[in-house]
């Protein structure tokens, strides 16, 4: 039979399996005793999404691209006085609300990819579990706090 190729003596699979479990028995398990010992995630791990409110232009691209619709954005327009005398006043979008519901988020990173103004970043932090699911909705103040944990971008390729 085709799937028997490579098996040279009877019951080879049985003994191979036994050998595999026996080897695993004497190997040290890779377990990390989490609350006492903390695992160090990879520097670019997708732990939590942080927000740079200054860079955000309330363009809503992230909210619209989000497959889970877990980003909530509200904003309004503001009149900005002219920068030079004699100019006309400009209108500017102002961010009122930027919430990410991490109970819904599936950590795909599309929002980070799609942001045209580099306002969203991945942070490797992962310890933000909550007792109530509603607490998983991080408002923009909390998202801004994560910004401190964002690693420096990698150096440019020469």
């Amino acid at each position, binding site marked *: 039979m085709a799937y028997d190729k490579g098996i040279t003596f009877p019951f080879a699979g*049985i003994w191979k399996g*036994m050998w595999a*479990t*026996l080897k*695993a*028995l*004497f190997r040290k398990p*890779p377990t990390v005793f989490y609350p006492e010992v903390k695992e160090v995630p990879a520097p670019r791990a997708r732990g939590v999404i942080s927000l740079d409110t200054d860079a955000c232009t309330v363009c809503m691209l992230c909210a619209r691209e989000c497959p889970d619709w877990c980003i909530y954005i509200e904003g309004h327009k503001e009149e900005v006085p002219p920068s030079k005398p004699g100019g006309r006043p400009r209108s500017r979008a102002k961010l009122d609300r930027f919430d990410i519901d991490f109970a819904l988020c599936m950590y795909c990173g599309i929002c980070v990819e799609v942001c045209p103004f580099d306002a969203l970043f991945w942070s490797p932090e992962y310890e933000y579990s909550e007792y109530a699911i509603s607490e998983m909705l991080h408002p923009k103040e909390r998202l801004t706090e994560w910004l401190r944990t964002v690693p420096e971008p990698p150096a440019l390729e020469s």
Partner: protein
Amino acid sequence: MNFWLLLLVEVVVILVVMLVGALVTIYAELKISAHMQSRIGPYYAGGKWGWAQPAADGLKFMQKEDLVPAAADHTVFRLAPYIVIMSALAVWVVIPFGPDLVVRDLDLGVFFVLAVSSLSTLGVLMAGWASANKYSLLGGLRAAAQLIAYELPLLLAVVAVVVQAGTMSLNGIVAAQAQTWFTVGGIEISAPFLLKGQIIGFVIFMVAAVAELSRIPFDMPIAESELTMGYLTEYSGIRFTMFFLGEYASMVAISAIAATMYLGGYWVPGLPESTLNAVGPFVLLAKVAFLVFLLIWFRWTWPRLREDQLQDLAWRWLIPLGLLNIVLAGIFKVVL
């Protein structure tokens, strides 16, 4: 000593051996299975390495409500766990821990063992029938089919040992293995039956024993992915604990039988006869521990067989092999 007092002592000792054996086996299974899957397993219960996990589990089960389904056959449903645990317990009556350390050295010891250990399947069938649950019933019937299929190879493997030993008493079988096999340059060589041509018999016995215990790869009566939990589906609390304990106790018991019949029981080459009563129990326990480890190892390595593959293996391979083994044992006995 007073007969009844001696009986009481014996019963208590056997009970303690069975319970401790079952708990240690459960712990071994938890830990070994964990490490075979690159896990740690129980770690915090009892402070060090989770040694108290089986006891803690038992205490937890005892606090649970003892549910009996409304449609169940109450008497049979309540009785089934006792039968399973009793069959595991009764096997220990004839297992010799030393030349004199045996509760009753029956002349028909092997017969008694086989008769009593198959009672546990009756308990399983009762549990499956009485639960008024389709999964339980299917599990119970599968267990019955499995018993019929695997009792025969078990029996045939044992018959070969009986032929070779010339006795059905378990103590006599150990004594037959301790006898001098042949002498080389004045040194008397004796060997357990495993090395005296019973390798096929031992393999058949172990395969059939795994099936009798309905452990993976022969766990069709439980088969979580097909039958929820088979005959155990409707059991909870203390009755579930009894099934659980019974399962592990019979694992230890059947390993003790295999150790006695094929690995020399309490006897080990080079040990003088006079020390056997003191050292014998530990020798037997070491052999039992090895066989139990083997059973655990099988369970966490192999996948479950299909029902037809199980029947196929028993009727088409193990039974003819067992018959051949008897013939070989007979020839061996007559010629040598």
